[in-house]
């Protein structure tokens, strides 16, 4: 591998890592703060991607279109969806064993996937990136790099910073962090924990849907796409340390590097490398890279 190729591969790794973070970050919220092992996270991602595909024409005819208008409409719908889901399906589960929540989210996966099939069908679809982001940049004389991918990376960084800021610097973030460590204490401080959880869940769903919408032009839209990202999201969150934004970002980048260079240097073992990485990290640091707190 010559030096230019190496640099490009590093860029690939970085970019893939950021994309992973984008997809996994909604899970950090729900998983880390509410302690809900949300198997339906992949479904929310899938819903987002399908929204990007199915909403675009609708939004186009109502609001005159535009990628960002679709994004905005999708986000509003996602928040509503998350809010209602938490209300109907999760609000009565916190007192129970965590595994009951797992069962619930498993049921939701099946339902969402089938609703998708009934409403949109089983075909593969593409989503157009907005025109002004559709170009490419040259990378040396070897190849070009799509601007949209750089845009995604930018969005990821902004999102990471925003989440970090909300978590550490705002009153809401403080309440959230307190709530994740001690439900009773927050309740005794007069904060409406039910409402807080509903907000967090809605935010988690919204981020997952947002990720799906943003990633749709790159990943395309196809049945079963949610399942393929689910496990890698858990890997990211767990390696990073549950509930830690910094950790998730670092873990996502680490996986980006391992996956990218694994494919190139150790193609026979590239599938297994990510899991070896996770096992090693957790055996070395049983609470992930950054313990939340």
């Amino acid at each position, binding site marked *: 591998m010559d030096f230019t190729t190496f640099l490009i591969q590093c860029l690939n790794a970085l970019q893939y890592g950021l994309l992973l973070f984008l997809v996994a970050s909604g899970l950090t919220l729900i998983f880390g703060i509410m302690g809900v092992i949300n198997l339906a996270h992949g479904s929310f991602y899938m819903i987002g991607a399908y929204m990007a595909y199915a909403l675009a024409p609708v939004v186009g005819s109502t609001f005159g279109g535009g990628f960002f208008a679709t994004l905005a409409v999708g986000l509003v719908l996602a928040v509503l969806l998350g809010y209602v889901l938490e209300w109907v399906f999760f609000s009565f589960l916190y007192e129970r*064993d965590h595994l009951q929540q*797992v069962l619930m989210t498993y*049921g939701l996966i099946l*339902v969402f*996937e*089938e609703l998708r099939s009934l409403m949109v069908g089983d075909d593969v679809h593409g989503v157009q990136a907005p025109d002004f982001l559709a170009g490419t940049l040259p990378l040396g004389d070897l190849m070009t790099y799509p601007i949209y991918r750089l845009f995604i990376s930018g969005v990821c960084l902004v999102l990471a910073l925003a989440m970090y800021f909300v978590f550490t610097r705002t009153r809401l973030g403080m309440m959230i962090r307190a709530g994740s460590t001690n439900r009773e204490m927050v309740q005794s401080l007069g904060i409406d924990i039910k409402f807080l959880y509903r907000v967090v869940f809605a935010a988690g769903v919204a981020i997952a849907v947002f990720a799906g919408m943003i990633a749709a032009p790159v990943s395309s839209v196809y049945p079963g796409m949610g399942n393929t990202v689910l496990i890698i999201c858990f*890997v990211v969150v767990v390696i990073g340390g549950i509930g830690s934004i910094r950790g998730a970002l670092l873990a996502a980048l680490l996986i980006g590097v391992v996956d990218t260079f694994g494919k190139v240097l150790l193609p026979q*073992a590239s599938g297994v490398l990510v*899991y*070896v990485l996770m096992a090693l990290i957790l055996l070395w640091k049983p609470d992930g890279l950054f313990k939340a707190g």
Partner: protein
Amino acid sequence: MKTSKFLFVVAAFLLLAQWPLMAGQYGVDLVTKIMIFAIFALSLELLVGSTGLVCFGQAAFFGIGAYATVLLTPQDGSPSLLWLLPACVLLAALYALVVGALSLRTKGVYFIMVTLAFAQMAYYVVHDTPLGGGTDGIYLMSKPVLGTLLDLDKPQAFYGFTLACLVGVFGFLTLLLRSRFGRALAGIRVNEQRMRATGFSTYPYKLAAFVISGGIAGLAGFLFAVKDGFVNPELISWHFSGEVLIMIILGGLGHLRGALIGAFAFALLQEFFKSEAIFGEFAKHWHLGLGLSIIACVALLPRGLVGVPGQLAARLRGREAGSHDAAAAKAPHG
């Protein structure tokens, strides 16, 4: 209450023993499959329900048992059940020993994910190497025999053998859970810190439970391979680990019966919603019905299907018993 549970289990096994006389060939096949899943579910119940260790990689042990069955079977002639079965169980248990020894250093969700990681490693080894036929899987050419006594090629004989294994595993686990070892596991589930303070080194206990569980899962894998004569990497995939976990949660954690009921309920629900006779064209959307039923179960049955009689009784006795029920539902993992 104790006798009623005992009677339920005995009645269930008697019914299973009578089943081949009542059902057609397919019915026998179906129940054979479910019984294998029930054995698999019991293996996980020992970890999740009885010890409080949520393992998300149980399919690895199942798959290793299944693959070992195929790979150890010689090209020419049928192997003897007497060495093949123990060999498969031992191999699965051996992998469980390695996985357990490492993953038990972690706790909670991290434990869940480490067990997943080890299962995925096994998955990719089978999936990406020619060792086990790669993605297309590999066939079992001749089924194991026990002299002339037992011909596992005959569905009825295989049914009987599977039922015997199920009863054996159930009986073994029942004894195990009442023994000192089992009580210690129960203590670990409720409060491991206290167990250590009392003088139990909990790590060897948990590891032993892990190995036993892996071995039983290996037995289920062995049966599966013999039944289908075909194994495939999907047997090790996380979907399968997830499904068996869903079975035992659905059935009700903390009870061996729960694993039995869960395995049957999960499989039969699928059969039901897939049935064209009932749903016609809509049967192809069977995931929807299954998903909604699971959601309904979570909403209405806090203790899983195993808790249904208790809930009904409480309903009959009136309100006051209800609150006690809720407390009991919370307590095991409190």
